[in-house]
């Protein structure tokens, strides 16, 4: 079973960068996949990688990270202006950030139009079946 935890932007909006990053890491370390509204600042993304590296143990192997964001290179000038206003008014609320533990999420593939999240195959152990006793007649 895979658990997703949604984090609305308002939950992290007023947190300091360090607290934001730590909040996300702590959720991921509980083996949950974070779906965060909006995105981190560039420096925070680097901090997230840095702190992840500090936290790595044989049990916590790191994270898979992906940010979905409108491709500004494909936008018309009008859309760019609208997005510019939205950025000013709403901060980094646009887009979505996905962070999962590397032990569960194998990879997140992002093409401009779609996002694919591949989970690691869980080994399903066949149920133990004891030797059938032969009934002697």
């Amino acid at each position, binding site marked *: 079973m895979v658990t997703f935890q949604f984090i609305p932007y308002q939950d992290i909006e007023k947190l300091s960068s360090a607290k934001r990053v730590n909040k996300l890491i702590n959720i991921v370390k509980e083996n949950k996949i974070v779906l965060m509204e909006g995105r981190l600042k560039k420096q925070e993304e680097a901090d997230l990688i840095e702190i992840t590296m500090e936290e790595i143990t044989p049990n916590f192997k790191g994270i898979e990270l992906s*940010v979905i964001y409108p491709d500004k290179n494909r936008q018309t000038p009008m859309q760019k202006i609208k997005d510019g206003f939205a950025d000013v008014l709403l901060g980094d609320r646009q887009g979505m950030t996905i962070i999962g533990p*590397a032990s569960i999420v194998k990879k997140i593939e992002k093409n401009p139009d779609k996002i694919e999240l591949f989970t690691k195959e869980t080994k399903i152990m066949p149920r133990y079946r004891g030797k059938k006793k032969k009934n002697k007649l």
Partner: protein
Amino acid sequence: MVRKFLKNLFSKLKLNPFAKKSQIKLGLYGPPNGGKSTLANRICQDWLGEDMSTVSHIAHETREINIKEKVVIKNKKGKELTFSLVDTPGIATKIDYEDFLNKGMKKAEAKKRAKEATKGVIDAIKWLDDMDSVVVVLDATQDPYSQVNITIIGNLQARNIPVLVAANKTDLKKANLEAIKAAFPQYKIVGISAKYGKNVDEFYEQVFKLV
């Protein structure tokens, strides 16, 4: 005495306000196994006649920052450019020692490599602020939209550090230079094969423009 104390303090903090700005630092950044060390060796072989780093097909071979001072390159017009070349460990979001076990390493060796690799990633990120210009070395056979690539380039952009993207391994059939150009249209992309020296002259020309 106070000056000496401050000098020692700043040198420990990697700062030295008493020194003149030394050479330009040209950093090689990118994900693991993109060919940063192969490119560093190519540059050093071409201009100094020696290797700089060890290379391996196993990821995270470079786990420490390597610096080669006073690399002097020349362009077609005979103009010289001197810089310090900084080869950095590959930046990754996950490091699993079991991946190294699968490459035939022993458990203790694999765990040690993983631990060193995590430190290497932290160092590489910390050194971002020290760079004057950066060549982001990407494996042209891999998906360019990986978040690590985007984070590295985004952080360089946020720091106003000039960036050149070297799409490496263009000698391989799977290489897709166009995909990298589509992913990072705002940057100059130069396709190279650091291993075989393909298109490195064009790369050096672009380094001149970058620095």
